[in-house]
């Protein structure tokens, strides 16, 4: 029998990106744009990625190492303010096991030379899965990828 637990945690990451809020926002708003940066590990090929980017819409992505554990992300969008804010809740499964449920807020603020983006995650980590540092690290890797993508796009 599984020993049940739920550990609440939260973290905030702020980044400056050298692109206008509309461009940074657009990187979150379609599968095509998101696929260029959102996977934690470049070697992880998504087996599926669907995104219905509207309030009430859903997103589903299945990634992970080839032949290994499947990381299943399922989200629902609660609030979208074009070029300004995105709020979604999501759960993560490792194969059949639900390891967390989270609420994510992303804010896009215009500032000199580009955009300040603030990512806040509030979540509960379930049933002994408590790799909160790993979640934050994975998120940072994604946001690093996003920065590289935006820099390439601005340079082009």
């Amino acid at each position, binding site marked *: 029998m599984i020993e*049940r637990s*739920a550990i*609440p945690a*939260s973290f*905030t990451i702020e980044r400056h990106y050298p692109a206008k809020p509309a461009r940074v926002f657009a990187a979150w708003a379609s599968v095509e744009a998101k696929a260029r940066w959102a996977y934690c590990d470049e070697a992880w090929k998504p087996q599926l990625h669907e995104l219905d980017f509207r309030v009430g819409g859903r997103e589903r992505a299945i990634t992970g190492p080839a032949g290994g554990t499947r990381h299943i992300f399922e989200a*629902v969008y*609660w*609030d979208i*303010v074009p070029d*300004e*804010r995105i*709020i979604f*809740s999501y*759960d993560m499964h490792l194969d059949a096991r*639900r390891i967390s*449920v*989270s*609420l994510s*807020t992303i*804010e896009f603020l215009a500032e000199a030379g580009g955009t300040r983006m603030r990512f*806040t995650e*509030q*979540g*509960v980590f*379930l049933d002994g899965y408590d790799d909160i540092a790993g979640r934050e690290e994975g998120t940072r890797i994604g946001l690093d990828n996003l920065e590289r993508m935006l820099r390439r796009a601005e340079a082009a």
Partner: protein
Amino acid sequence: MTKRSTVHATFTIERHFPSPREKVFRAYSDPKSKAKWFVGPEDWERSDHKLDFCEGGRESVSGGPPGQPVHYFNGLYQDIVPNERIVMSYEMHMDNMRISVSLGTTEFKADGKGTRLVYTEQIVFLDGHDHLAAREEGTRALFDNLAAALEREAQAS
């Protein structure tokens, strides 16, 4: 144009109920039981409460004091472990304005013959609607309702 802002907050409420956790959980899972306690103050006008208690299922209700803005609750069940845990996300609107989005985790733990309930809410308040004290107070009032409903049920059986 709305000036956009966010305030992130968390609160936790713990309650002990004399009823066993199967009964406390049932007050959440059974639509008729939940409608008895998941309501605002008595003078509030309210709509029908809708509850589809399953993972991916929805819950909604609206209500408010006469002549005041209507509070609309719209929730989504994300994790259900029978008799042990419920995780849901929900939004609150006042009239047509979304004022918050929350993640609410309810844990039901056996505590002697009764139940210790631990409720944690992680919230983002939107666009100047920073209602943490009111939200926490409103949630405590709901647990008072729940305690009264469970007591009535225990006396009836």
